[in-house]
């Protein structure tokens, strides 16, 4: 009987359906097996249910495009009838299933466990929980639903004992057999003489203990202050809360990093290239030992088949040639190479790269399901290395040749030349890359420490980008180097024997014979076009193909759906600050000689002022505004208009003002949030619906020098926005905020549409990482370039006492 015939009407339980292989499997079942149903174990997201995730992450994937067009209007009905998402998690005991979930599991004929953390640099404990314990958990859950004693649900409609046990197909990896020279057969690991029989339970205990241990070590005071310092380096004076959050994140990352390193170290010590095959191997052992039929005399024996694919890559034919999901192992390497970033990659030219198209793995799984379990746990390899080897040297030639003819393009629209690899040893490449990353690390530290903003800061961000890329390249070499040097050959005799049992029609419809792959065709016409398409890289020349992202972001920002736009003032709309506005006002009515001493005083005070500003903006404003003590209110508010027209306007960013006005034209509310004084920003009021600024106390027509209102700074700005939005029934998700410095991070994070304007280097780096829109606004060419912010020499008021500056340099009080 045909595969589809045998499986018709069967019910499949699938874990890992949101992954690459799982998605392809679900699609193939729905499309090719009549009336078969799938129960999908899906972990609910923080704000999404299992059903929502299924729709969003499985059914909406372009994998289903073919089925969708075949079914047309019937797609939703058909899928609704045949797909049953259940909430659960292979990382939890009993899979975290509720009663419904258990009932559905009990009703299944085939269970395909495809969930895994495939990342080769997963933290050890996570890999252990999912890869090692996952298969056993699935088996335990199946066993529990068929154990009359364990049934929690007296109202169960089925008789657990009466239903036959489902066939558990556990997806593993060919690399569980290690990468040693020699042949690996399709046999349980016990029979493989190269694998060490590690005690899986001890490894589990150790991994869990290690996390505890690292958590404790990460909280050591010295380490905590290291994290705090790193956070401050990154964010500057963004506010205590944000700094705390960042340093906590750094702590988490540190723990994770340590766990990753521990995983690779442990894996290597036992002869596996990294934590993935290591944990998968122990997972197989745990499964077979605990539930294998005929291996242990247990009540929980299950029919088990293990399917071990090699490196799964894009589909050869089903659902369409080149279909791929996610950016997987080989893709980032290929793209880095095509972008000219990987000058060398280690590997043995005659070594075999064992790649298998995803649709072949799916077909093999379905053939195994149709074939049914054997009396004892059995193993199938789905790999190409023995039957139809792809040599590493050949692959590199094919890739180089393809990118020679289809180059990627750099930012300037110039084609990128791909380097010719010379297949050096892994050690040399690693050392080269390590040197490069160390050098870039130094450059990056130096550049981000510079007080630059705008385009120069972008440059710093670019340096950082390069650094990240180099670090990543090093990571690829360290992680994947072993796979390009693999000398193990994974035999596929059982797989081919299975293929032989198929009817000719099935052999075409469910093709998993690696011999049918034409590698030249696969690499050139199937895989690389798909990789390039997914990588979002420039594939056409010329400057005309500009990055459309800023344009799109700008459109989103200026959409009528937005309703609130918040602006910072200094260096966001005007290249000025509280010190130079003060200097201008204070020198407005000074004689030439007193100007000189005034300037000298201010210059002398400057370093102290800057340091205070950097330490605490609030303290700085409070102390600096003391200089206005005794200044006459009338004169200052008069002078402030002159200050605006003669000093601030020439230093303004016309694009910024144009943007404020555009928001107003669109009917958005506009808010100015600044530490500047009310009389200084008075001329700007027509641009804003609401102005939040500092205000000085007044006594007898003169300023007291004490702040009546200290404007919100740092995180307080986010709170203020939240309050304003609440009071006016607006949603911050639809708000836009413009600021130039990391100290405004809280405000930028609070809104749905943050915009970094001429960002200083820290914010530039943050904006780049988070994909925030960046605007480069500059003074009008022809605007003021004077270095000293001094008022014009007052010809008219000789004899009139200077209202602000005192004779003492820098001082104000009289």
């Amino acid at each position, binding site marked *: 009987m045909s595969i589809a015939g045998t499986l018709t009407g069967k019910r499949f339980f699938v874990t890992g359906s949101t992954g690459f292989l799982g998605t392809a499997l679900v699609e193939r079942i729905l499309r090719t097996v009549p009336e078969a149903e799938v129960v999908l174990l899906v972990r609910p997201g923080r704000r999404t249910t299992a059903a929502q995730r299924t729709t969003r992450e499985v059914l909406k994937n372009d994998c289903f495009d073919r089925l969708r067009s075949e079914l047309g209007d019937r797609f939703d009905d058909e899928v609704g009838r045949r797909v049953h998402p259940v909430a659960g998690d292979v990382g939890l005991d009993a899979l975290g299933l509720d009663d419904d979930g258990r009932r559905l599991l009990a009703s299944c004929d085939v269970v395909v466990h495809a969930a895994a953390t495939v990342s080769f640099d997963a933290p050890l404990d996570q890999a252990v929980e999912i890869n090692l314990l996952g298969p056993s958990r699935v088996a335990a859950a199946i066993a529990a639903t068929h154990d009359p004693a364990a049934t929690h649900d007296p109202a169960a409609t089925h008789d657990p004992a009466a239903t036959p046990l489902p066939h558990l197909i556990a997806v593993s990896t060919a690399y569980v057999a290690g990468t040693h020279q020699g042949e690996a057969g399709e046999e349980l690991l016990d029979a493989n003489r190269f694998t060490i029989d590690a005690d899986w339970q001890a490894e589990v205990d150790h991994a869990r203990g290690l996390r505890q241990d690292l958590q404790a070590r990460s909280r050591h005071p010295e380490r905590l202050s290291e994290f705090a310092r790193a956070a401050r380096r990154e964010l500057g004076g963004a506010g205590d809360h944000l700094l705390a959050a960042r340093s906590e994140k750094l702590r988490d990352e540190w723990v994770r990093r340590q766990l990753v390193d521990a995983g690779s170290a442990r894996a290597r010590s036992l002869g596996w290239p990294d934590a993935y095959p290591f944990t998968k191997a122990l997972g197989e052992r745990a499964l077979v030992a605990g539930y294998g039929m005929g291996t242990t005399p247990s009540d929980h024996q299950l029919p088990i088949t293990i399917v071990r694919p090699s490196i799964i890559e894009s589909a050869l034919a089903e659902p369409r040639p080149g279909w791929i999901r996610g950016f997987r192992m080989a893709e980032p390497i290929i793209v880095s190479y095509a972008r000219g970033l990987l000058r060398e990659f280690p590997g043995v030219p005659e070594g075999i790269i064992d790649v298998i198209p995803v649709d072949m793995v799916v077909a093999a799984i379905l053939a195994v399901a149709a074939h049914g379990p054997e009396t004892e746990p059995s193993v199938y390899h789905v790999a190409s290395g023995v039957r139809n080897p792809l040599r590493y040297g050949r692959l590199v030639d094919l890739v180089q040749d393809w990118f020679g003819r289809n180059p990627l393009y750099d930012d300037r629209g110039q084609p990128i030349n791909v380097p010719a690899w010379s297949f050096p040893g892994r050690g040399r490449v690693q050392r080269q890359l390590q040197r490069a990353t160390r050098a870039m690390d130094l450059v990056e530290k130096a550049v981000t420490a510079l007080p630059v903003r705008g385009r120069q800061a972008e440059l710093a961000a670019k340096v950082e980008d390069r650094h990240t890329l180099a670090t990543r390249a090093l990571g690829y070499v360290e992680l994947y180097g072993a796979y390009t040097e693999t000398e193990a050959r994974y035999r596929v005799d059982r797989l081919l024997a299975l293929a032989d049992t198929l009817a000719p029609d099935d052999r075409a419809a469910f093709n998993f014979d690696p011999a049918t792959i034409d590698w030249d065709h696969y690499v050139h016409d199937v895989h690389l076009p798909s990789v390039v398409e997914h990588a979002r890289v420039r594939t056409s020349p010329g400057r005309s193909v500009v990055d459309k992202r800023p344009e799109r972001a700008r459109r989103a920002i200026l959409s009528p759906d937005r309703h609130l736009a918040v602006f910072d003032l200094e260096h966001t709309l005007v290249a000025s600050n509280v010190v130079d506005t003060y200097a201008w006002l204070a020198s407005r009515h000074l004689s030439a000689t007193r100007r000189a001493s005034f300037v000298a005083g201010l210059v002398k005070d400057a370093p102290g002022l800057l340091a205070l500003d950097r330490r605490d903006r609030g303290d700085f404003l409070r102390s600096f505004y003391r200089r206005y003590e005794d200044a006459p209110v009338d004169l200052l508010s008069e002078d402030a208009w002159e200050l605006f027209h003669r000093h601030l306007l020439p230093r303004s960013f016309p694009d910024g003002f144009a943007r404020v006005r555009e928001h107003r034209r669109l009917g958005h509310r506009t808010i100015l949030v600044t530490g500047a004084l009310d009389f200084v920003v008075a001329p700007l009021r027509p641009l804003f619906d609401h102005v939040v600024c500092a205000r000085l106390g007044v006594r007898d027509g003169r300023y007291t020098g004490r702040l009546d209102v200290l404007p919100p700074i740092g995180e307080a700005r986010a709170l203020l926005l939240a309050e304003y939005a609440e009071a006016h029934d607006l949603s911050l998700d639809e708000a836009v905020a413009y600021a130039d410095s990391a100290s405004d991070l809280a405000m930028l994070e609070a809104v749905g549409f943050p915009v970094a304007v001429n960002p200083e280097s820290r914010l530039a780096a943050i904006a780049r990482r988070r994909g925030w829109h960046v605007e480069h606004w500059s003074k009008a*060419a022809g605007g003021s370039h004077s270095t000293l912010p001094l008022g014009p020499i007052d010809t008219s008021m000789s004899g009139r006492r200077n209202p602000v500056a005192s004779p003492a340099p820098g001082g104000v009080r009289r």
Partner: protein
Amino acid sequence: MSPRPGFVLEVDGSTPPTLFWNGERFCQEKLPEGSRVVYAPEPLEPLVDPVAAVRHALTHPLGDSAPLPALLHAGMRLTVCFDDVSLPLPPMQAPDVRQLVIEQVLDMAAEAGVDDVVLVAALALHRRMTEAELRHALGDRIYEAFAPHGLLTQHDAEDPENLIHLGTTEMGEDVELNKRAATGDLLVYVNINLVAMDGGHKSVATGLASYRSLRHHHNPSTMRHSRSFMDAPSAELHSSNWRMGRLIAENGVKVFQIETTLNGDTFPAQFGFLQKREWEWSLRDRATYAATSTALDRTPSRVARQIFHSIRSPHAMTSVQAGEVEAVHAVTTSKVWEQQGVEVQGQTDIVTMGLPYICPYNVNSIMNPVLVACLGLGYFFNLYRGRPVVREGGVLILRHPTPWEFHPGHHPSYIDFFEQVLSQTTDPEVMSKVYEEPFATDPWYIHLYRTGHAYHGVHPFYMWYWCAHALEHLGKVVVVGGDPRAVRRMGFAPASTLNDALEIASDVVGRSPSLTHLHTPPLLMADVR
């Protein structure tokens, strides 16, 4: 010896290179043989005693007007309006003509016991003058007497409280004016008539009007039908202002017009070579030219700009007349013509001009690209009577660095105009239909115009409309030495040398075109026969 009239030189092998203005610099160009160079007449003899001349004019008015003293009486409301910073160019050495005239007007008012006097700077939509500029135009004495009491005002075309709508002309043109000026007992308007278009009914109907009123003649259609706008009988701009002026008179607004003309003595002695014909340069002229242009070439343009804007012109008064608007203006126009008119025989394929650092709208400011276009295609192109010097479909070659620079305080709407409007269209018609209104009514521009020193939001459009006649007439405009991006943005062709420009022009006018160079400033007006 009386001053020599204007002159048209034919370039031959022995002609020395011709001086071209080039923004804040100069250069000399060897023009092709057979080219013509048009020189302005030499400066007319100034009035010997300008103070006496003013007094005589005020007491001996022209047309249907009583002498000024007879119009003044105790208890009346007198408004003295005067031209703003856009006149004269460059700003003149103190005392300014406005000061000379207004001092006497005020003396007469004081003698008559008039105590309600308000001074109004007739800005139209120009930027407000700074204190220093007002002091320069009026002198410290007048400034101190009026400014502290709020009696020295600047016309605010966006202050609904201080505007009055007088009605519409037979052509449907709104006349909306400064309320104080229009409702007082007497409006005295003090003009400096630098070019032929200044003065007449335009003084009040334009200088004291609002956007609602100005838009009727400051538009592409009017400008295209003003050929040229410097030649009153042929200018629709002039006709529209005259209709408005008569409506103003019909509404009982009593205007006592004072117009003054200046001679062509434009630059101080150290720049004497600018006003001389090259082959007559003395050794000293040659030396100062060489020294000045070498020094300027090494000076950053920002500094050079400061140096040039500090130039005060030795302009001297050649005539003053007062009384009824039209009678006064007729005399003035002939006097301007006497100083600037040059007879030119026939048109040529190409006209070249070197544009200086200043135009009416960038005194103490930056000559941005829009103003470069306006000075070349608006002002200088229109300095003709009869026919333009360049033939229809011919080529205009300008020399100016045309930097992509704007004064953010003075020209904020220009920045947006250049970015948002000129990037979309250079057609004045499209501009006026699609883009003008939002700029003219933008509250931010209005705010900056009213509280700061910004030109009105609509002003850059007017500058472009000023070019409308030239844009329609010319086959091509080439700018030599300009910022190529800025030049292209305006739809002109950039060239790095005059020879390149002639090469570019050959597409339109062929390989052996005729060429005329306008050697200005000093200003001249071509009478093309």
